[in-house]
């Protein structure tokens, strides 16, 4: 087992080394994109099938979660948060495929995800209240808190990375160690636990991303004005 802090280089594209997590991520991208496109083509405005019903239920639940967490309409954030959740979930569960190491078990992938969330906080914050509004969000609740808010912006990004990395990497390591020590069927309960852990970590990552982005929004919508209609606009 390689160190989780380093990645195995598979090939180079010019000067760029392409590591194993990157290739796995490409595979996940292909699966998710093709799967999403295929599902989209099966959608109907008439009576929905089981898959569409399940999908609409998931999207409605996601919208409700965004609405309750961010106190705003979910439409601008649905794609970002939903894709993060799906990618992390599929990446975590990719450990079930023999020979595939989940990309999220590599620190670089978790760091990339954390960086994306960090950038998203800035982008959504600036889009919501402009540069001034976003910068003014550091003054909350008082000017004294500006250094702590600045440090918090970095540390929470770091915590996102470390939390996801630690949990997924630990699961992979435990399964690997148990598999090397015991028989073939012994790690199965731990793999089931790893499935649960992967789903929970994906959920936690998405929730924290929503919380951090909502904290950057300078015009938080009053809870009373948010109608929990479940609309997908």
């Amino acid at each position, binding site marked *: 087992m390689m160190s989780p*802090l*380093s*990645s195995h280089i598979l090939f180079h594209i010019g000067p*760029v*080394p*392409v*590591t194993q*997590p*990157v290739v796995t*991520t*490409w595979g*996940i*991208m292909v699966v*998710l*994109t093709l799967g*999403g*496109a295929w*599902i*989209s083509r099966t*959608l*109907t*405005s008439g009576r*929905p099938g089981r898959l*569409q019903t399940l*999908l*609409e239920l998931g*999207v*409605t639940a996601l919208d409700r979660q965004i609405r309750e967490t961010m106190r705003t309409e979910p*439409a601008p954030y*649905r*794609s*970002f948060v*939903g*894709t*993060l959740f*799906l*990618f992390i979930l599929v990446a975590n569960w990719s450990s079930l495929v023999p020979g595939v190491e989940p*990309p999220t078990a*590599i620190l*670089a*992938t978790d*760091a*990339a*995800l954390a*960086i*994306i969330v960090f950038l998203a906080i800035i982008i959504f914050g600036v889009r919501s209240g402009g540069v001034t509004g976003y910068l003014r969000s550091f003054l909350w609740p008082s000017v004294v808190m500006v250094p702590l808010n600045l440090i918090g912006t970095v540390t929470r990004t770091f915590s996102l990375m470390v939390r996801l990395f630690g949990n997924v990497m630990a699961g992979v390591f435990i399964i690997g160690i148990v598999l090397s020590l015991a028989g073939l069927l012994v790690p199965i309960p731990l793999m089931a636990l790893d499935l649960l852990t992967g789903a929970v970590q994906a959920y936690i990552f998405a929730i924290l991303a929503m919380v951090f982005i909502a904290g950057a929004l300078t015009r938080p919508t009053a809870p009373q004005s948010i109608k929990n209609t*479940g*609309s*997908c*606009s």
Partner: protein
Amino acid sequence: MTVDWWTIGLQVINVSILIWLLSRFFWRPICAVISRRQQEIAARLAQVTDGQTQLEADRAAIKEARSGFEQERARIVQQAQQEAQSERQAILAKAQQDAAALEAGAKQSIAQEEAENQARWRSDAATLSCDIAGQLLAETGCCRPARETLFDRLLKAIATLPDRERLSLRDGFTFATATAPGPDERQAYENALMTAVGEHPAITWTVDPALVEGFAVKTPYLTVASNWQADLVRIREGLSHAGH
């Protein structure tokens, strides 16, 4: 420990591309479908609400109409009862009038019939009495004084005749007696008649038992009677008309 910046950068790019791809090919279509379905459901709900509102309005209208029906029914029943009462009273009044008219007519008819019966009975009784009297007088005969009295009355009747009628007797007449007179009686009667008329008229003698007793002087235009038959007829008529 080294940081694999290339991998970090590639993963940032990969995840960013994935976010764009899924947004383009997954989230947007499914949200469009969900939104479309929600709009359709909202439209159907609106239709249902409209239908429900229409239904409520129809129900209220039906209720109002039913209330109107009830009022109309009550009014019609009341009107019918009033009409029936009026018609009943009219029929009753007419029946009472008819009954009164019938009663009056019946009473009148009964009274008239009773009067007619009484008149008929009286007439029958008079006829019967006269018949009995005539029969008794015919069977028992009469006495001379009665005959003489009847003859005297005949002479008085001739004397009281108007002159023109009394003088017409001079042309002749028929002298009827109830029984054939003897020669003496005949002569006496003839003399007395001559005296009463004033000349010697042509007298045709005849016997008529129907006279019962007495005499009758007859011309084609005049009859002077003094006999019991005429008296009985007169009495009978007098009795018959006594009740009227």
